């Protein structure tokens, strides 16, 4: 709970909350603008092109120019579309993207067991818009709401390519949410709390979940997050060669801009979630002699955005490097590899935790659990092989050789 809201609520408190909302919204919008420019520029560099370089220094204002252009274009609505849902869908995409950012702690002193409380206008508060008790579950809830935006956009367009794109999207996003949730569970097991503030505070002093959970949940989360964002190499939702533009084929003008904005906003917020969950958010070494504003704002903000930048770079790097997955490969990776892996790893971490609580020998506990996981993996593998029909190859060969049988 935010200490700001625990006492009497007066005008100042309301104003502080409003200030935080406005500042975080503005920061996110500027961040998205820079992210679009950064992505285009970096992909251009990786492909030996120049990229945007006309509007403003280094083409920095290109996104703004594109936004203005889109804003003044004609807003088309297909005749066979569903008018209400067609207009609703872009907002269902955009609003969750922003709401996720509200629970991300972006500053505050978390070193040496501090809990990130800062003093703003004479009031103690946290550097996040809200710190609800459900914390990280809110992030998962919003990412499941975001599915509606994509899905309804495709359906309401009343056209076949958007519909195909949205059916793909919803299946993909629902599938990967499972892997996402299971890797978050490993983090929650260590943190012992759902609040984002608590998760960051628990990682203070270099006890980052990145290595405290032994790397595997991190890898699963990054892959699942990429799929959840519909970014390359998992961008089957808008595979140009197959689906024209995917779910937003029929959208134009400002409504298309909203989808575009939501996509990049989601990239930024998902990177922020990764930083919060696995890299300790704004946590980092802070000299105790420094003045208060350096301890509370400058250094943590620098750490946070530095870590954020790493993941933004990685997402662009993925896009420039990896070819798109086929749809069955995507589903195989999610259901047959990531989910069992995250579940098995969760089991191992749980056994470690129970052994620690009960005073058992951790080596024995982990060895027994690992044996169980291996047996489970072998069973899973054999069942997948049985289901895929590899053992039917002989029959097919017979039929093919004999012609009529």
């Amino acid at each position, binding site marked *: 709970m935010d200490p700001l809201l625990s006492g009497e609520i007066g005008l100042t408190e309301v104003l502080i909350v409003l200030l935080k909302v406005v500042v975080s919204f503005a920061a996110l919008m500027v961040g998205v603008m820079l992210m679009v420019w950064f992505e285009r520029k970096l992909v251009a560099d990786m492909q030996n092109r120049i990229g945007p370089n006309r509007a403003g220094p280094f083409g920095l204002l290109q996104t703004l120019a594109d936004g203005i252009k889109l804003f003044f274009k004609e807003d088309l609505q297909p005749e066979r579309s569903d008018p209400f849902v067609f207009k609703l869908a872009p907002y269902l995409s955009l609003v969750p993207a922003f709401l996720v950012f509200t629970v991300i702690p972006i500053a505050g002193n978390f070193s040496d067991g501090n809990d990130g409380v800062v003093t703003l206008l004479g009031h103690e508060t946290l550097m996040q818009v809200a710190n609800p008790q459900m914390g990280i579950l809110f992030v998962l809830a919003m990412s499941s709401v975001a599915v509606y935006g994509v*899905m309804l956009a495709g359906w309401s367009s009343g056209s076949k390519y958007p519909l195909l794109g949205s059916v793909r999207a919803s299946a993909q996003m*629902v599938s990967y949410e499972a892997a996402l949730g299971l890797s978050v569970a490993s983090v929650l097991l260590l943190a012992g709390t*759902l609040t984002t503030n608590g998760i960051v505070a628990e990682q203070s002093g270099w006890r980052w979940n990145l290595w405290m959970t032994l790397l595997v949940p991190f890898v699963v989360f990054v892959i699942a997050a990429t799929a959840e964002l519909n970014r390359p190499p998992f961008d089957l939702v808008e595979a140009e060669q197959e689906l024209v533009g995917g779910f937003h084929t029929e959208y134009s003008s400002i409504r298309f801009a909203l989808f575009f904005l939501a996509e990049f906003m989601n990239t930024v917020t998902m990177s922020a979630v990764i930083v919060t969950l696995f890299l300790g958010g704004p946590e980092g070494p802070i000299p105790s002699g420094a003045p208060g504003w350096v301890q509370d704002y400058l250094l943590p903000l620098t750490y946070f955005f530095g870590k954020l930048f790493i993941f933004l770079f990685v997402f662009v790097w993925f896009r420039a490097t990896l070819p798109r997955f086929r749809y069955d490969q995507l589903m195989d990776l999610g259901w047959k590899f990531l989910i069992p892996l995250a579940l098995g790893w969760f089991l191992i971490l749980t056994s470690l935790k129970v052994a620690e609580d009960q005073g058992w020998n951790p080596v024995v506990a982990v060895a027994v659990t690992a044996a169980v996981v291996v047996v489970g993996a072998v069973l899973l593998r054999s069942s997948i092989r049985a289901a895929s029909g590899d053992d039917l190859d002989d029959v097919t060969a017979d039929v093919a050789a004999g012609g*009529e049988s």
Partner: protein
Amino acid sequence: MRVEVFTFLVAGAICVGGALGVVLFRNPVHNALSLVATLFGVAVLFIAQEAYFLAAIQVIVYAGAIVILFLFVIMLLGVDQAEAIERDPFRLRRTITVLGGAVLLAGSVAILLAAGQRTTGREAATAPLDPAVPDVERLGRAIFTDYVFAFEITALLLTVAVVGAVVLTRRSTGTPIDLEEFPDGSAYDVWVSDHPGALVDEDTADADADADGEDGSGDDATDTGDADGQDDESADSEVTS
């Protein structure tokens, strides 16, 4: 007006409006969206009762997974055109539904009026709870100690349901047939010999559905065993699809 009352009124209005929308809209997708509105209203009511975990689960599981699956099925089956309910062949079904709904409504109103505050959960809400312990912890303790058997049995039930669904959808036992391997048109005979018992009549009764509706029973089971020609057709389309 106190904030709690205001929250309750707004969320309650969304719930009731959504529920009405589920029943009254003609388009299945609009029905499903109304259901989402109701689920969100309930989630807000959960938060007003400080049951944060339940609220999050409500959104993640119901809005995020179950209604998505509803929509998925609606879109895939292409039943998203507004149906002409007047031509519904099963008139008796409508009557039964309306009657059943009315009985349910009357019954719940009667129980609510008779039992008063005992049904609204007020007693449970006023029971002593330690506000320092998060509701996740309380819920976890309850589920994994007092109600652990109910929890495990539910998990088993879901597993059985999943296994059942997989078994039902994986009926075909033989190899799939590639038509190009049989240019002489013998693919159908090969398929039949590979799939003994696969030609139990199905989906052939659709043509007679309207006629069935007249007697109000809507029973499809009686008219199986159609002419062979029709069987061939349906089986062939199954081969090619």
